[in-house]
């Protein structure tokens, strides 16, 4: 059985204006250790999909199964536990605690996990060994995103979800961050899923899922991913 499996997943939002289908019959399977890119234009349903995978929202119908755990059937409290131990998030705007140092921001996540990694060594791994005691305001955007990645990695989760992780960064810094995420999937053997609208990134992924109007357009495997350094956009 696949590490992550989605079966006929649908998500409907109801509002005063009527029902809106954000996702319709989503099916795919992913393996552990893969670097996956979810591509699609704005409003295609990428973020909705990521929210369902990350336990921040519940599917209307269908099943999401991660490593044998049926996430789509979890209740609110169980979803919190799922986010606590199994998911690492990386956001476009970092979402660090402004009054905590880099190390403390990572500790905030590891403190509540059972199999967490050592915050200081994870920060050193992402290249912030000298910046452990700096506050977010003292760090550049790229450094802040590294803290946020370290925070996700240090939890030692089953899955790493990244929503436009380079969206607020410059070209070079963005590439460095993508390298870091790619390496994480390989070195730590983690399933890393990156949501982006940047078509160029499809070439670096092990697997690409393209999504349009809430439906899966295609899912394919890259036999030979190209290193991020060689991709230009």
């Amino acid at each position: 059985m696949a590490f992550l499996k989605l079966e006929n997943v649908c998500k409907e939002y109801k509002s005063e204006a009527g029902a809106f289908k954000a996702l319709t019959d989503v099916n795919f399977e992913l393996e552990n250790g893969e670097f996956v890119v979810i591509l699609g234009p704005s409003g295609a349903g990428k973020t909705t999909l990521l929210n369902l995978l990350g336990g921040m929202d519940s599917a209307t119908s269908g099943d999401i199964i991660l490593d044998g755990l049926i996430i789509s059937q979890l209740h609110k409290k169980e979803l919190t536990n799922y986010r606590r131990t199994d998911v690492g998030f990386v956001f476009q705007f970092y979402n660090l605690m402004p009054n905590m140092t880099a190390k403390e921001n990572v500790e905030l996540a590891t403190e509540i996990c059972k199999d967490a990694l050592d915050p200081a060594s994870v920060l050193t791994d992402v290249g912030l060994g000298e910046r452990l005691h700096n506050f977010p305001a003292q760090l550049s955007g790229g450094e802040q995103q590294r803290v946020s990645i370290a925070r996700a990695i240090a939890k030692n989760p089953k899955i790493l979800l990244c929503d436009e992780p380079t969206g607020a960064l410059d070209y070079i810094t963005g590439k460095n961050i993508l390298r870091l995420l790619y390496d994480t999937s390989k070195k730590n053997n983690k399933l890393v899923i990156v949501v982006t609208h940047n078509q160029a990134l499809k070439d670096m992924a092990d697997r690409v899922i393209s999504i349009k109007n809430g439906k899966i357009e295609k899912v394919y495997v890259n036999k030979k991913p190209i290193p991020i350094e060689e991709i230009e956009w």
Partner: protein
Amino acid sequence: MKASFISTLRLFKKHIARLITIIAIVIVSIGFMSGVGEVQPTIKKTINKHYKTYNVSDLYLKSKKPTGFSTEEIANIETMFGSENIIKTFCYEVEDDGKITRIYNYNLTAQKINKLEILEGRLPENANEVLVERATDLYEGAKVGDVISVKNPVGGTISCTVTGIVQNPLLMHRAEETSFINQDKNVSQVIYVSTDLPLIVNDVYVVFENRTLFDSFSDRYEERVEQAKQLVVTKLGDDNVSALSLFENFGLYSLNSYAEKIGMISIIFVVFFLLITLLVVYSTMSRLLDEERNQIACQKTLGYSSSKITGKYTFFVFVATLGGGLLAFGVGQLLTKMIYGAMCAHYDMPDYASSLNFGYYLFTFGIIMLATCLLTFATGMKIADKKPVTLLLPKTAKVGKKVLMERIPVLWNRLSFRYKSTFRNVFLFKSRFFMTVVSIIGSSVLLLAGMGLFDCAVGYKDAVSIVAIAMVIIVFSAALSALVIYNITNINVSERNREIATLMVLGYHEKEVTGYIFREVYIMAFIGALLGLPLGYVFLDFVFELINFGSIAQMNWWTWVLNPIITMFFTFLATLLLKNKIVKIDMNASLKSIE
């Protein structure tokens, strides 16, 4: 025009909780300040009215001889004050069955000085008809139509019919009137017998020509009284006459001095309430402006002027203080009426007629509205004048700064990680910490002062009026305290929206998230509640000294324990009410964008 209207509407909708809290704080504050502040002016007006309506005598000359004043002495008094300004009476007391009855003989039909208020019946028409002082807890009274026997000072008794029940304007206090024939006893009945010209004149009541001089025991009046007393004693001799003034009239003078004590208490508390209200409203607005940094930056880049942007926030505080101030009018009126009513338990005062004193109301309303609008506008301009780029960055404490505790490793290293971050959040933003703690200290000091006054006032039999005011202070400062703490907690939650969402995404459970936010509130409330005790001590000492009433030693020891417990209880209530606000925060909406 339409867009700015919509954006103003959005601002109100977004911060509706804060709008309502400011309105409530202003109602409590102005309601208290005007309600308590107007008590003294209202009572003073009542005293003046009483003095004028009943033509209350300024001096009461009592002959020390059993035969009363001589014809010569009377002539002297008439020369001194004018014959039309005095009444000559014969007053004596008789003891019967251990009860003291006081009898006044004078021309009741003339009724020019110390006019008796006829509560029932009519004036006597012949020598066999009498008036009786109204029944109270202390006076027996009688019924119209009763036939009572009135003893002569020389021994005989005549039967008289009661034609009226009256109230003597000099006996407005509901306290014992000590007998002058038996110092151990109190007068239990007062009877007025009408005589054209009493045979003996032992009491003479004098009114001064100038009736405006009195002005509820003004300094000029006191001078005049002393002068007149001296004149009488010099002319008639110390051995023959004792001269008493309204300063010795227990009813009127004690009412006046209680009014003055209330006046002093009011001024202290009004100033205190005013300062706290200004601090709370201003800190609420400045924190709101900080939260709106991104919005302000956005409008700046769109080309709106700083004053136009700031105007919207100034309008917000204008509406809040205007609304609160208008609603406070009724609260203030009701409060004055209540305290006045409590004083009536000990004084026979005229019924409360809605006071026409609006001085305190207009003054406090004006100050609060003007000051908060100006301060909000100034703070808003300071923020709006910054570059949009600066505004888009989150406001953080000075980089690299450590809180004092971090410099004490023995202490700091012992704290768990969660407490470290809590302490840093509490102490890092100095002005926020200062404003929060000071407003908590302020409201708990007020509450402590109310409790302290109450403790002391219940010890005195006659301090009904101070008990009433202490109770009012307790209720209003407790309400203020609860609102201030709710407001602070609410702002804390709202400012931390994004951090709360981050904690939720990281998998923190509801209890852990609320704990993370509320721990800070509890620590600040605890610091405020504790610091409130020594500062409350100093404040109370000052209040007791100033009003010359009560002392710290007279207070119950448990008041000092109860006070911080109440503050912590309000904090608990606030966190209970705001728990849902945290739990309902939408993780996605708060994390997906900068704003």
